[in-house]
């Protein structure tokens, strides 16, 4: 995962250095909104191939400079049995382009999570969300009131479950406690539009 993040950053920085054309028009800080939806590609059991699950984000933020924006987002993601709702911070840096721009973005935050196999009535069962890290490269068409966006990224999401049950054995009460930490890795392809 870390290797992929570094790779993305590396590629993006190199692209940024190669960009010499800067928009010289005067900038005014402004609000923006983005709605993205798409698919997450990855596998829990890769012997049966990749699975596609859904992902959607709604982000609201502020364009602070010509190239840099910050936003708060909320999302809804699926990982087969798991569903998550991330609340995240988005940092976005333009690395290329003027009218149509290439953006390097980092979405990171905490996700609440639900495991939807509730027919397993495990004793003292708890389901927990965890950190979401989602770096992405987004191609933005247009910079006026409305924009189209195409995004590709890599998402790392942590969830966990715990259960504990006690039972009588020959010698007395014994317990069994199971903590499962899942780390989902997904290629995320999203399409959406933005407004300001």
């Amino acid at each position: 995962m870390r290797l992929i993040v570094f790779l993305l950053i590396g590629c993006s920085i190199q692209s940024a250095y190669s960009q010499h054309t800067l928009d010289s028009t005067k900038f005014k800080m402004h609000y923006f909104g983005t709605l993205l939806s798409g698919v997450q590609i990855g596998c829990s059991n890769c012997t049966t191939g990749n699975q596609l699950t859904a992902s959607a984000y709604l982000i609201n933020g502020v364009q602070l400079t010509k190239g840099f924006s910050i936003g708060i987002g909320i999302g809804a993601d699926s990982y087969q049995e798991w569903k998550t709702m991330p609340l995240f911070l988005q940092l976005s840096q333009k690395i290329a382009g003027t009218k149509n721009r290439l953006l390097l973005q980092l979405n990171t935050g905490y996700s609440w999570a639900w495991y939807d196999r509730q027919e397993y009535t495990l004793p003292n069962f708890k389901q927990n969300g965890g950190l979401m890290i989602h770096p992405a490269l987004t191609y933005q068409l247009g910079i006026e009131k409305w924009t189209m966006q195409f995004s590709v990224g890599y998402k790392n999401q942590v969830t966990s479950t715990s259960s504990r049950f006690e039972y009588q054995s020959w010698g007395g009460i014994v317990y069994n406690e199971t903590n499962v930490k899942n780390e989902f890795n997904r290629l995320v392809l999203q399409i959406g539009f933005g407004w300001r």
Partner: protein
Amino acid sequence: MKKLTSITRFLFCILLLISFGCEDNYEIVQKYSYFEPVYTTTAEIRASVGLTPPQTIREAGKIYIKDNWLFVNEVGKGIHIIDNTNPANPIIQGFLTIPGNYDLAVKGNILYADSYIDLLAIDITDKANIKITKRLEGIFSVYNRMGSSIDPVKGIITSWEQKENVMVTTSKGQAKIQPWGGFWFDRGVAFAQLSSVKTAATPGNPSTSGIGGSMARFTIEGDYLYMLDAGSIHSVSIGALNNPVAKTKSMIAWDIETIFPHNGNLFFGAQSGMYIYGLADPEKPNRISQYTHVRSCDPVVVEGDLAYVTLRSGTNCQGFTNQLEVINIKDLTNPVLLKIYPMTNPHGLGIDNKNLFVCDGDDGLKVYDATDHLKISDNQLAHYKNINTYDVIPYQNVAIMTGKDGIYQYDYSNPKDIRQLSRLTFSKE
């Protein structure tokens, strides 16, 4: 051209991402406790039987009366021998160490006691010089073996030691939660339920045998000793008292708990009901009928044409029922429920000449006049509260009751004026 270079690099990055793959990882941390068996060799167990000086009672199991002697089982450890000539002042005379002892019965001067897998016949004529006259080795195949088989080298499981373990598993993919909680053991054993270990002893023929409680798993009827072994019954010929001979073993029901003899028949208390067996062939009891009730623990006693059954709930008993049932057994082939009386958490019970004693757990000892079996609750003679009661033997106007903290004796020669005679307090160490 620069734009083209930028897009090319962008696409190159995507390709690299895909080539890395997006497989999930998981980590399972499993922490569990278990009891590891502690083995003792059969030679060691058999060598450790013997009479020792009097000891304080710590955890009383079954009780048994023979003449003026009271035998109290120390669960899993042996038998306290108590001189009960004066019920107002019982005196502990000695302790018979018998590892793995839970049940006992007496006929003549021979005490029959289990020791894990063995049955011992012990001559108690001289209480200061007790001798083993016979040992039936390995007769118990299931009972008291804690669900395990005997290891030919290590011996028999005699206790359990609690252990803890943590297992960490990491792998690719997603960890699927198992419906059973996903517990794995790399060693040791654990069972979902503890079968009733602290059970009891029963009345036999008072002229030659002793008297036990309602929660017994051993009983004597005629020249036969009957012993429950999990769901089966052993019949052992004791025609020659000091030389018991194993005869048959037959299945009754997997949830059988207690045994009570009456008029040449055996009444078995099981979690699912009461079974009535005949002794036309005393070597091989034959089923006459079965009375079914809700699942719970249920000792049974019989007097005349009526059987009295208590049902209780609890950790090992399942169910939610706590009551006393009166059953007409005049027609043994068709037992009929006559009346139900609600109770708190009834355990053992005893009846003598229509004086019904019920050990109602934490609600104490209740005594009823059962002359009118349809109005038992209206005729309560006494209620001793603030005692956790377990089992009772009413015999010859003295009721001997075991509780959590001691053995109590009551004089019921005048049922309307029942008096406590003594209390033998258990050690809390």
